[in-house]
């Protein structure tokens, strides 16, 4: 195991601790307003200072990271499931069903994703739940398309025909051999999308269309901090650093996993 992979795993483990054990770590209630200590800088009592309402920034950040990461995970898991069902049904049944499902996917892919997400979030009304819905709605199509491609490729592999020729049941063969070959690319793809989705969520919350205050969320917190940039820069610097930390952990793990699964050694030995 190389250093990249180790770093990635450690970063993700720390992140998991923040996300799932956050309430245990946070020293203050993230919603507790105390106007007497508003907009304070770093101090012993408040490690990362306080915000415009005197809430402890460190505690809020821990909760906020949880919110952002959990939404990303839900969006990715849901889109992956829908995409998997759509894509594999299209590829397995083929013919008119495939054609019809592909046209639906095409229409979804024909929209500029961000505009579509914003539009849906806008008409539904800005909230954490609606932003999750909007993101699932606009992202499942690419998963479906990917799964369909993988299944179609795998269906054509010579060994499928070979085992059918040997007397195996075609459907059984496909389910047993083709589906597993979809999982690795699908999970790699989904993994990449986590970082991407995270960026989308904080971006949407930043422009006020995502998670609404007072719920702590990283993008929304940066949005709230805009008015205090001059006096309290820590209010936007710390949440931004946390976003970068989360996205970086997923990116570095994604990078090293790809190297791990597709080792360079193979290409070195081809003479």
């Amino acid at each position, binding site marked *: 195991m190389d250093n990249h992979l180790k770093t990635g795993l450690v970063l993700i483990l720390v992140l998991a601790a923040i996300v799932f054990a956050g309430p245990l770590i946070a020293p203050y209630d993230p919603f507790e307003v105390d106007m007497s200590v508003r907009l304070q800088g770093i101090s012993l009592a408040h490690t990362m200072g306080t915000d415009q309402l005197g809430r402890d920034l460190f505690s809020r950040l821990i909760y906020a990271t949880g919110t952002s990461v959990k939404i990303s995970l839900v969006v990715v898991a849901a889109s992956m499931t829908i995409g998997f069902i759509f894509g594999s049904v299209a590829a397995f049944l083929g013919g008119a069903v495939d054609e019809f499902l592909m046209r639906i996917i095409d229409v979804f892919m024909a929209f500029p994703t961000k*505009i579509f997400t914003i539009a849906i979030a806008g008409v539904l009304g800005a909230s954490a739940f609606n932003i999750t819905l909007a993101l699932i709605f606009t992202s499942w199509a690419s998963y479906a398309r990917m799964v369909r491609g993988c299944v179609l490729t795998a269906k054509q592999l010579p060994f499928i025909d070979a085992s059918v020729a040997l007397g195996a049941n075609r459907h059984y063969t496909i389910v047993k051999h083709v589906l597993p070959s979809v999982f690795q690319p699908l999970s790699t793809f989904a993994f990449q999308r986590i*970082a991407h989705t995270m960026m989308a969520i904080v971006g949407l919350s930043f422009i006020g269309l995502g998670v609404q205050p007072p719920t702590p969320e990283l993008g929304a917190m940066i949005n709230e901090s805009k008015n205090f940039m001059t006096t309290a820069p820590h209010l936007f610097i710390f949440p931004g650093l946390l976003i970068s930390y989360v996205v970086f952990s997923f990116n570095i793990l994604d990078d090293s996993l790809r190297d791990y699964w597709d080792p360079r050694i193979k290409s070195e030995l081809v003479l």
Partner: protein
Amino acid sequence: MLKYIFRRLLYLIPVMIITSFIAYMLVYLSPSSPAQIILKARYTSEPTQEQVEDFNEEYGFDKPILVQYTTWLNKAMHGDLGKSLTDGSDVWEDFIYSFKASAKLYFSSQILALFIALPIGVYSAFKANSLFDRFSRAYSLVGISLPDFWLGMILVYIFSITLNILPSFGYTSPKNLILPMLALGLSSSFSLIRLVRTSVLEVLHLNYIRTARSKGLSEGQIMMKHALRNAMIPIVTVLGIHLTHFIGGAVAVESMFAWPGLGNFFAKAAGSQDIPVIQGFVLLSAIFFIIANLIIDIICKQLDPRIDFHNESGKNNG
């Protein structure tokens, strides 16, 4: 070639009909009816039952959905997308205005990104695993993890608040462009560096590079005439996709710098549930997106003679 373009354009018709239908139907996703939303915006209080009925009759909302839709589509085809509910401005004109603003910001920032990423990425691939390569990989890996709007805030903090040499918002003077362009350009350059590096590296391992070397070409000639030429195919494709993302892709940066671009304008409309603007913008940006994808495909065909239009069923990738 012309046949292909014609077929693609023909294929656009059903896509546009469905797209426009979805754009129109977006309104019905909302928990409240158009009348409620519009009247609430107009009178700033919950409308009475009577007001709603009057309104529905006046604007045709009492008719079947299909009739409403065809009326809207018919008007849209004549360039009339209605008026904004918040300030009464013409949706079509708003789109053009903000489109121009977005294009200005986005094109300049992508050119900046290309100027940063091409030399770094190519050199990195050429000297793979060297100190420079390791550094540029780490740099771009950290870079792609920074949200673009946050990068913008850091720039504002440094150049506007601390040094006070550049404006943090505004649109009128060329100076206004610098910070948002830097934020977007830098932010795009990180992923572009990675793309250029992998594309070039992949090509460098291919057999025809070995052939080029066996022909007695210099490393520079190999790089320029064989490696880069082939590596440009994926780079141009992705760059093209990036460019189409300027509708909406830069929304957070535009909002941060109060840049009157498409994303910013659209986000405001969406936030205040300005229905005609939402419908119009979704329709126009989808059309733009589809046409832009067609243009990218044609450019790719120019770059890569192996792409055969006749065996392709005119699909576009978003």
